[in-house]
């Protein structure tokens, strides 16, 4: 079908590009100037003397540590998720027991629990467990709250493995763990990368659990660092925005190199 170019849509798409792009441009421009230059030229002015000093100051001013804490949290959350979700999904898809059916429903129910609803009892549980102001106390609830989506995604992917493949392995007399390692895992690679990215994003961008479960500088993650920076030195706009950019860099890198997995991870949908 021949199509006329849609002028209205073209115009609208440029308007939205402006809406999305202006704040991002302003942010980048601000981070590349000194505070006095920024105050003089304002947020919409063109930066004249470019400098990376804001970034260096942030990294020396604690953001290096926060960055490291966030990496620890993220890697641990992903590790926990990858350790418990694949066996769970395998059991849900392949076991005929009624218990696993119930378990699946429990996780579906979990989709509807917002983290905001449980921060008070979470604070109670984590304090009683002696994990307050400890990164482990952030890792555990963060991982638990990525489980429902990850389970849903991976179960969906594993359901697509055809019964014939299982039967072929059964003929060889393979026990469940060999079926799992040699058949299920290799055929779920797409789903595994989706849940990796999803849980990593949840952990990297997580704010609520660190906010109520940690307090000291040694356990501060980057989102909390941004919040503190803003409340304490909000007047240093270039430094603050440089910290925002620093917090985005890893995600932007993933977006550049693994866009598909990232988009699917964000949507929490099947990765194929």
């Amino acid at each position, binding site marked *: 079908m021949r199509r006329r170019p849609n002028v209205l849509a073209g115009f609208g798409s440029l308007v*939205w590009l402006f809406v999305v792009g202006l704040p991002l441009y302003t942010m980048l421009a601000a981070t590349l100037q000194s505070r006095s230059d*920024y105050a003089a030229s304002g947020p919409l002015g063109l930066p004249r003397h470019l400098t990376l000093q804001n970034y260096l100051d942030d990294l020396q001013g604690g953001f290096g540590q926060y960055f490291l804490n966030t990496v620890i949290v993220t890697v641990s959350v992903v590790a926990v998720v990858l350790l418990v979700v694949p*066996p769970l999904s395998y059991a849900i898809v392949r076991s005929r027991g009624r*218990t696993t059916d119930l378990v699946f429903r429990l996780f579906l129910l979990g989709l509807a629990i917002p983290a905001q609803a449980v921060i008070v009892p979470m604070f109670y549980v984590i304090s009683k467990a002696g994990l307050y102001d400890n990164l482990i106390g952030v890792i555990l609830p963060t991982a638990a709250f990525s489980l429902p989506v990850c389970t849903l995604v991976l179960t969906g992917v594993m359901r697509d493995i055809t019964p014939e493949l299982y039967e072929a392995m059964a003929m060889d007399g393979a026990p469940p763990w060999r079926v799992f390692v040699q058949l299920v895992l290799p055929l779920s690679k797409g789903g595994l990368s989706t849940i990796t990215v999803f849980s990593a994003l949840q952990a990297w961008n997580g*704010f609520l659990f660190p906010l109520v479960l940690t307090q000291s500088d040694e356990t501060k993650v980057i989102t909390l660092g941004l*919040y503190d920076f803003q409340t304490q030195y909000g007047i240093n706009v270039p430094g603050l925005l440089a910290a925002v950019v620093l917090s985005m860099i890893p995600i932007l890198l993933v977006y550049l190199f693994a866009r598909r997995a990232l988009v699917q991870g964000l949507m929490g949908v099947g990765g194929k």
Partner: protein
Amino acid sequence: MTTTLATGAVTRRRPASRAGTAVTRPGFAWALPATVFFVLFAIVPLVLVAVLSFTRWNGLGSPEFAGFDNWNRLFDDPVMVKSLWLSLLLTLLGVAVQTPISILLGVWAAGHQRNRAVLSAIYFVPLLLSATAVSVLWRALLDPNFGIPAEAGWLFGDGNLFGSQSGAIGVLVVVGAWQFTPFHTLIYQGAARAVPPVLYQAAAIDGAGTVRQFFHITLPQLRNAIITSVILMVVGGLTTFDTVLILTQGGPGTDTTISAYYMYQKAFKGFDFGTGSAVALLLVLVATVISLAVVRLSGYDRMRSTSEGL
């Protein structure tokens, strides 16, 4: 226990494979670690929030049973009642602003043209940022002294958007839309791509132009996507927290103190964890009721397929 479950599962199943070999199946043990973990850190807290809402607890020591005290005070608390209305208002405004934009963008992005793919990739960026980063960024951009309002006074009046209720609500709605429109755009993009092309071909033969095709084919076909997206907006909107904490701190006064923020205030600033729990539980109930209502009213529960009659 695991073995009995596993063998029970095998016998209950029909004599499985054609070859006659018994297919070995994983037992419940495979699901156990994840289940225990999830119960401990998600289900137990959910039950505890209900329990704690009937107690007095200041964060130290042990909670004491308090009967319906927290709940009774909650419904007499004008700030609480106001916060519920504000939550609903913000959610409603969010849906009203984001839905049309994301439907248009989603349908537009569903086209396979190269330039659309490139622009869509850029549109996506706000979704990559944490809500914290987004809020901090906008707070700096909209700063009355150093931000854009200070330069573009003709557009922003006195420049202090955070000083009036309508200004602060406007900021929250705009920032929410800026961040979450890409997410809903993706939902609509996927749905628009799933519309059978034969429908458009038929419409084109009947002489329907782009606009009529949009209203008579695309929109009706997007129905399920609209319901999904609206439910996600409702749940997300009612539990909005980071944005309020960073952008307005619930102010001016309590003019943007929505329920999720009020809960945080009560519990972690006022050290009244019992009342905080009650607010949290109330919020979950409201979100669930509204989601169910959307599902019911839209007929989504009857699962009518949009490809019926094709």
